[in-house]
């Protein structure tokens, strides 16, 4: 966890009441990024966070991948979604928690403790977080 309280790899943070959060970084110019970065699009360090799990998003595009790497569910439907945080857009990518999704659908983040098997792929398991948020269509 960084000094600003964000998980730099997009993993969930735990709030004081223990609920995981999906923290985007907020920068002095008002811009947001998910995941957080040490330096934002405007060249400045973040000054705070926004919990995207409290918002809904719109599906920008999606795919269903059938050729998945070791430790990843098959098939793996992924989506790029866009949140509107008080007029400021911020995008995220993630697995879809449903059999089907369409461009333009409204989705909400749902927490998942383990998105893929950390032991199965090439990346060192201890090098990053493996929990995070999937996107579930809102009926």
């Amino acid at each position, binding site marked *: 966890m960084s000094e600003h309280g964000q998980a730099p790899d*997009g*993993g969930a943070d735990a709030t004081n009441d223990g609920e995981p959060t999906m923290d985007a970084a907020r920068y002095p110019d008002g811009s947001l990024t*998910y995941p957080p970065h040490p330096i934002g*699009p405007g060249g400045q360090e973040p000054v705070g966070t926004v919990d995207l799990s409290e918002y809904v998003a719109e599906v920008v595009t999606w*795919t269903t991948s059938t050729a998945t790497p070791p430790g990843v569910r098959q098939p793996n439907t*992924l989506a790029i979604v866009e949140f509107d945080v008080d007029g400021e857009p911020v995008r995220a*990518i993630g697995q879809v928690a449903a059999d089907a999704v369409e461009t333009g659908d409204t989705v909400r983040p749902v927490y998942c403790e383990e998105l893929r098997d950390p032991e199965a*792929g*090439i990346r060192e398991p201890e090098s990053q977080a493996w929990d*995070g948020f999937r996107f579930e269509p809102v009926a």
Partner: protein
Amino acid sequence: MERVAIMGASMTQFGQRDVWIRDLLAEAGHACLDGAGVAPDAVEHLYVSNMASGEFEGQTGISNALAHDLAAMPAYTARVDQTSASGGAGVYAAWQSVASGASDMTLLVGGERMTHRTTAEATDVIASLTHPAEYKHGVTLPSFAGLTARRYLERYDAPREALGKIAVKNHRNGVDNPHAQFRKEVDLDTVLESPIVADPLRLYDFCPITDGSAALLLCPESVAREYTDAYATISGIAGATDTHVVHERADPTTMGGVVDSADEAYRMADAGPDDVDVAELHDMFTILEVLQSEDLGFFEKGEGWRAVEEGVTHRDGDLPINTSGGLKSKGHPLGASGVAQVYEVYKQVTGAAGPRQVDAGTGLACNVGGFGNCVTTTILEGAV
């Protein structure tokens, strides 16, 4: 500054090979030196473009190994890794070594050995370039292609068939390339009915996993003239990056690294997209040929898909793209691909492309790493 020439080029057979990375690199390196009539001990700088020999086969230190295998000691050596753009980055490093005056004879060899790994394992090695926030969701390069293709097709109301026609075109071109992994034509129905890999893209929208190597010999133009009249010069070359996290780009259908590297390469060459006669683009996925053709300025944004429909990018069209067969047909041994792109352009502008020959005085190669994360654009001109 004296212009930098490419005075020799070689490439091995691409495909499934029974030799390991050291032998692949040595095969292309020896062929390049022998073809140019240059002794190994004349090489002053030796660069090796390679993404992942350590991850694929547990062999590191391959630039020093190649220097020994070629008997090129005491040449300075370095390995250049820029993921799928390692080859293009190697061309840039080799150009810099000559242009700076540090070397009068620089050999660049790019190569990768991949096919001993399963598709899933190779996909994971390549996907390891992604940000942790992407990797943990199982995001792969093919899945980026599917996400982007859907966005492009929906945004520009482009037909799915146009992407399939790129595969058909590049397979047709590959038939005439003796080094290509696939020398077989495919028809549009075969492409459109092949298994889904990353919806809406199917198997034939993707390049294969490949072993292979390619090499280039660079020197000052005055040195090249001592050896041959059949050389090319690098009139423009530049590299650029885009965001590591792909979804943060303002327009998912624009590859900023292509735009920026091309702008600088055109400026250096005092040329523009209209001056390019032939191009090798990084068609790791069919959608990438469309995006690059737009971001290089060949076509308006959202219109690139029409080029293949109208025959513009066919071998007998106004702007032939991927006369080699592209990564799609020729194959994509990661570190070799950018070198092999320049090999094809070199062959075209020196009139040595055989049955693939087109009328070309100026050619361009665009090598893409990640999903547009790192890009190198190179412009070659034939000697006049």
